């Protein structure tokens, strides 16, 4: 999905629907809750997206496309591989932190057993392109002898995706259980530094 070329009217529906689906999941979300947040009607939603299912698929596509639009702005290819890797992880941290609805809708999709993602070719490709980008950085590092040979890109990818996603999704639990607010600027900065440090230590030769 090309975010820039999106009709503002449709984009408005997708933004509202994303926040409702992220909160309630596919089954728990109601079309009424979505129309309440926009200037549109139920009829217009069905006209543009066909069905609740069609809207949900468009929302997932929209969420992943927003992530891709942000990823594309970085050029990691010229940096030192270790610095590039650290920047890659930091970028994921900022991305997830600034886009909690993305983290949340992915979790919803997991709770649903990922029934929609399996057929979403374009989304799968976004992730695979991102992994390929990381792989290039790691291969460059291996070639230069700064990254150990047995590191795989999929493992590194999951390491920082897991750490960055958990920092967003478990925020409320840490506040309730430990009285720690993970979202203060200081805690966010510390956490981001720790994650980048851990990822770099993990890959270093």
């Amino acid at each position, binding site marked *: 999905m090309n975010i820039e070329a999106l009709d503002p009217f449709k984009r408005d529906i997708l933004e509202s629907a994303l926040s409702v689906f992220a909160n309630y999941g596919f089954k*728990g979300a109601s079309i009424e809750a979505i129309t309440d947040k926009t200037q549109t009607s139920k009829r217009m939603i069905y006209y543009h997206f066909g069905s609740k299912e069609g809207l949900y698929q468009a929302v997932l596509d929209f969420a992943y496309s927003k992530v891709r639009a942000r990823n594309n702005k970085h050029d990691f290819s010229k940096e030192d591989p270790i610095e590039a890797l650290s920047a890659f992880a930091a970028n994921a941290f900022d991305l997830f932190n600034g886009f909690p609805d993305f983290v949340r809708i992915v979790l919803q999709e*997991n*709770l649903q057993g990922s029934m929609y993602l399996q057929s979403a070719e374009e989304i799968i490709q976004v992730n695979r392109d991102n992994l390929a980008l990381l792989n290039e950085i790691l291969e460059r590092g291996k070639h230069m002898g700064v990254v150990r040979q047995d590191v795989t890109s999929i493992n590194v990818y999951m390491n920082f995706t*897991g750490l960055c996603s958990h920092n967003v999704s478990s925020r409320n639990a840490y506040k309730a259980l430990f009285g720690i607010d993970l979202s203060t600027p200081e805690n966010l900065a510390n956490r981001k530094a720790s994650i980048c440090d851990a990822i770099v230590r993990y890959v270093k030769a």
Partner: protein
Amino acid sequence: MPKALEKLDCPKSIRVNNPERTIAEIIKVASQEFASKGYAGVRIEQIAEITLTSKRMIYYYFGGKDGLYQKVLENAYKKIRTLESNLIVRSTRPEDALKELVEYSYDLLQANEEYVQIVMSENLQKGQFVSQNAVIKEMAVPLVNIIADIYRNGIRNGVFKFGLNPVEIHAFIQAMCFFNVSNQHTFGAIFNDKIAEKNGSKVQILSKSRVVELVLNFVKI
């Protein structure tokens, strides 16, 4: 058989006479329902149907959907905290002790997918129920205390770096072990050919040894 005896044999009358068992069974079924459907998706009528009780009885015991959900959360946390407290770390070397703890945490969450799903759902509704649940908030978190001991030893032996907080180390370990279970479906769908590590029918998106490695690298000097 006389009518009166026949009536005594029917499950409903046993339930009436054994409220503790009925309550436990309602919580068990409700846990499965809340784990798979989330708070919004659960219908009390359905839980009543599966447990052969009634909506009225569930309201009588739990006060309503919110009360039932709070009990489900409490029960899930209590079970996990009890299992956490069963961990006996045998190694005396801090690095080995931490390795044991990470392995234990990993296996614990992998074996308790229902707990992971309940926590995921609760996190998705911004923890609004946990934050109001005094019982859960007062439960000690055994793993954090064990981590604090191990970390102290590691600092004393000069093998762990200064300035870390046991809660932070705990969050780090949980992030990995939790993610391995919570995001298995989307990762499975996107990278199915790249995830070679499978344990029976379960996809392990992060292998245990790699989680250990990541955590040790994070804590060691």
